[in-house]
């Protein structure tokens, strides 16, 4: 069985695209589309990696990341941040908060796969 990845993203079409790409590469993919209880979902599903969107309904990706980093069980969990706001200050903020990787939408499918493989070696 492949590694487990959780996609937290509110656009259904983007979830579908990422799921397709990752499943084809042998990942087990779960998704969640809401910011409110994202942290609880991460704790419950215990994935090997999280793909996290910044603009989420209820709670921003930055807040969720801050929470994850503050908890011992998820402090080292690899997190790939995705954002549609391509400003450099967003990248700086993500890195300061402890994101493992930061990618701007739209992304190339190959880049995502490559980043994931680097973050979670098979």
């Amino acid at each position: 069985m492949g590694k487990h990845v959780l996609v937290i993203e509110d656009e259904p079409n983007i979830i579908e695209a990422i799921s397709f790409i990752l499943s084809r590469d042998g990942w087990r993919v779960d998704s969640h589309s809401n910011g409110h209880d994202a942290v609880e979902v991460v704790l419950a599903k215990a994935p090997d990696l999280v793909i996290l969107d910044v603009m989420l309904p209820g709670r921003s990706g930055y807040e969720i990341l801050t929470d994850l980093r503050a908890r011992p069980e998820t402090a080292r969990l690899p997190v790939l941040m995705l954002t549609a706001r391509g400003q450099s200050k967003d990248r700086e903020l993500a890195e300061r908060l402890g994101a493992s990787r930061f990618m701007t939408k739209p992304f190339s499918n190959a880049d995502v796969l490559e980043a994931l493989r680097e973050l979670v070696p098979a």
Partner: protein
Amino acid sequence: MTATLNLLVAVCLGYVAFLFLVAFAAERAALRGQGGWLRSPLVYTLSLSIYCTAWTFYGAVGYAARSGLEFLTIYLGPTLVMIGWWWGLRKLVRIGRTQRVTSVADLISSRYGKSTLLAVFVTLIAVIGTTPYIALQLQSVTASFASIAQADPNAAPLEDTRQIALSVAVGLALFTILFGTRNLDANERHHGVVMAIAVEAVVKLFALMAVGVFVVWGIGGGPAQTLARIDASQMGQWQVDGMRWGGLTFLSAAAFLTLPRMFQVLVVENEDEQHLRTASWAFPLYLLLISLFVVPIAVVGLEIMPAGSNPDQFVLTVPLAQGQDTLAMLSFLGGFSSATSMVIVAAIALATMVSNHIVMPIWLNLTGGGAVMSGDVRNVVITARRLSIAGVLALGYVYYQMSGGGAALAAIGLVSFAGVAQFLPALLGGILWRGATRAGALAGLSTGFVLWVWCMLLPSFGADVVIPGTVLAEGPWGMGWLRPQALFGIAGLDPTVHAVLWSMLFNTGGFVIASLLTFPSPLERLQGAQFVNVFQHSARPQNWAGGTAQSEDLIVMAQRILGPAQAQALFQDEAQRQGLAGYLPEPTPDFLARLERELSGSVGAATAHAMVGQIMGAATVSVEDLLAVADETAQMMEYSSQLETKSEELARTARQLRAANEKLTQISVQKDAFLSQISHELRTPMTSIRAFSEILRDGGGLGSQAQSKYAGIIHDEAIRLTRLLDDLLDLSVLENGQVNLNIRTGILSAVIDHAVAATGAGHGLLKLHRRRADEEVTLETDLDRLAQVFINLIANAQKYCDAAEPELTIAVQARDGRLLVDFIDNGPGIPRQVQSVVFEKFSRVSDQKAGGAGLGLAICREIMARLDGTIAYLPGQSGAAFRVTLPLSQRMAAQ
């Protein structure tokens, strides 16, 4: 001669129909804003003449026949009050207008800390004091019918005079309900009623003077000879008792101010303070003219009528005896006018008091605080007022039936006067003395009331009716100092003077002493300062410190009471004054005071205070507020006005600078946020497009089903991208004002039809409610742009209204030359905290993505601005509600 009685009934009905027409025409004119002549000082002066009731018209002659010139005191008292308008009435009217007082009970209650207890007490005294007076009017109308029937040999003697009294009472109740409860707000005034009263005032004066002229020149042989006849009669010499002369003048002056019906026309119905100026001389002149011929009529009546005739009917019987049927008819109409106008106004005044101070508090208590938010208070108030009118007249009729009619008219009148005169210390003390307290008012009123009942009301029924004769003669349980007509053993006083003297003395004494001994509540002190210094003070009591009230709750309540149109206008006006857009002003103390005053025009001060209090939580008047008001006058004296203007100017400039700076910062922040938003909105669909196109490009074992699905997604997202760009361009064109409007003429219903069709609403889940009749309005505007706005609003309802059975109401109304189109759904509405930002770019109403970019309402706002209209969120409705306002240049319905 044969049909006198039938003719009389016919004339009477015709006259009543005429009065209906007058009242109706006046209402219509006022409604159309053409009521300039309705607001003339002459109409005001004539309306005051309801002071002259049937008691004057018939009773004055009888009074003169019995007691000589003493009857004049009843008219000299009011004359003194009117001549002295500058220090008394002027203040009363000013207070009545600034505080939006609805009745004498409301004024007293409002002055003493908006006390419900006082209001109830005053209302009860007023009802007790006025009921016999209404009975008296019914009696006089039936008596005059009987007099004419007697003189008509062909008519059968009147079997059942009660039938007449009943018809009169029912007719008056109908008239009063019809014209007296049309507007809820007492301060909107009853134009129809006032106009009808003014007409009746002319009729009764004309009738009495006609009889007088006939008596002096037709029978008496000219003025000189008539004067000689007077000297030769039984009232030939000046025989007036000094105590009664002074006492009754005082009593009538007091009653003139405190009678509920007089307070109604003097203060409540007053349109303009300046009218007092004219009335100050014109009303004394009216009183002079109406009393001018009383003595001649009495003297001639005593001479020519058979001994034992009732002098109360001379005005009618003297012309009848002389065969002057037309004059008698006119005289009858005069008496009829006097009686009816008094009953109508008294019923309105009492009904206002009963419904505002008894029914409403009880209803509020029974239904609890939630009633303010849920029930339709407006209907309750109007129903209460109508029932009260019917109740007051029923009481009058029952009293008439029980008393059987009989006692001389003047006696009932004086008892009634003395009853309401008990309000005088609390009333005058309240507007002249800041130290007067609620406890003082209660003490004075109750003492005076008890003494009045004991010394005047109960004995007036006669010995052994209510009070046993022995008690009257020896006092209760043999206590001689408690004899009703000789308190403290002081016998020999005239009973009326005795009762007035003691009741007023103890009333005033109790009022002053209790006021000196008690300490007023903060609210009382504030109201006291407001009333006593009404000419110096700004007219706003700072009752509400700190606003925790939700404006939305307040508007919901206000709509229930004032009606939606008036409430929305009030809130919008206040929001504008505070520099806010929309309908929700901040609940500042100033605004709450204003709202309370507006509400008190409908339900009385005490109830309005309680209602606002229920929403505000506990009424909190802090020491600071109190000091602020108390020091206001002193401070104003200290600062020279120049300094004040200067500092105001500085403060204003500083405020403007601060506002400009804030605006600049905001614009910069907004620009950043806008760019970032656009980036996000563009990149999101591009992400899907890129990801799926790469998947398709890489191919590799995709099923044909998956292939076409992914191609579909790419297609949809591309369209979304295009739409977003279209919207952005549209908005940018609109904002820069480069848009070309395509102004055409069309009908609103067609525009709405178009919008409904474009959104597919009506076929889907969403149920539409429309009133096509209202929509037949011709518009001259850019119809396509307007349709775009409507489409947006309907689409929003489709997206966000998540009721089980979603409904959308489109309501159209014209108001003040503007067309209002409301879109109201039954969903959860928009939360208070985001209402202010729904029209901003990229703001979404809810968390769920609904496909839009959040530009729709922003575009709507820009379009409406281009069309000289507005769009606003309308709070306090059943769900989300948007109001589109358009100018209505040509107001014509499509044929």
